[in-house]
């Protein structure tokens, strides 16, 4: 189903919407029609417009903030990886590095969400995948700390 179709078909009662929301729904309905056009160029333009219209205004305001946060997370992850590689034995370094890599992915995901490049439902799928990723890393870390698995320790590094 087309992107604007999904938005236009939300179970809103049109008569309960504010005038601004009515206008938004009308725009999305027209764009949903355009997405079914037999003219490919019109279809592509309609999809791009629908994404823009569907992005909440607050999200568009949040884009610069999300960009700054994302860049800070990327720089921070770089420092963490650099520190981990220099300071720890290979297993903790790998855990820290993969965690930092996960943070990088989250930063990219947030940037994509707030800039309107991916809708919220796709971001939630991405977030669910990220949760699984961190659970796996955390589980490996706990096993290593408890001595269940022996992948080396800091004395090895020395």
């Amino acid at each position: 189903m087309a992107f604007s179709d999904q938005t236009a078909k939300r179970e809103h009662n049109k008569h309960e919407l504010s005038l601004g929301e009515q206008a938004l729904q009308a725009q999305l309905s027209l764009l949903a029609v355009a997405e079914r056009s037999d003219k490919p160029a019109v279809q592509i333009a309609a999809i791009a417009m629908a994404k823009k219209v569907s992005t909440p205004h607050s999200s568009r305001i949040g884009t610069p903030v999300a960009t700054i946060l994302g860049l800070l997370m990327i720089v921070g992850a770089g420092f963490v990886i650099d520190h981990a590689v220099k300071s720890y034995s290979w297993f903790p370094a790998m855990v820290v590095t993969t965690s930092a890599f996960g943070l990088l992915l989250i930063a990219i995901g947030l940037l994509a969400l707030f800039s309107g490049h991916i809708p919220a439902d796709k971001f939630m799928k991405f977030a669910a995948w990220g949760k699984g990723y961190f659970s796996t890393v955390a589980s490996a870390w706990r096993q290593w700390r408890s001595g269940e698995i022996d992948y080396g320790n800091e004395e090895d590094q020395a």
Partner: protein
Amino acid sequence: MSDKFEYAKRQYPDMADLLDRMQSYVRRQDGAGEPYIIPSLAGAVLSLTDGEAYVLLEILTSAGVVERAFNVYCRATDRYLTTARSIEELDDPRLFDGFCDECGRKHDAREMRVELAFTVAKENRLSEAA
């Protein structure tokens, strides 16, 4: 304006012909003194769907040829009430309180409907140029 329009056509080369046709329609409407371009009417004249006409008008909006307009009507009487220039303006009670002369009272949002329309940008109006 012409530069912006040509830039829009370069951005959408596959729609250049459609954009030319829509711009001609907009000019004809302006020349006939019609204040608003309605996507469904434009689509009917140009043998396009409402959605296709809307997309073309949105592109002409970004090219500065036309501007968005949101016409508000009373649902009960279909009387024209006001025109807003943006979605934010529609919900701003300082700009429009929902009063309907025909009904003699203020309406809330559920008693009104919004029609998407476009107007020729002020600097491009034939009447302004004359």
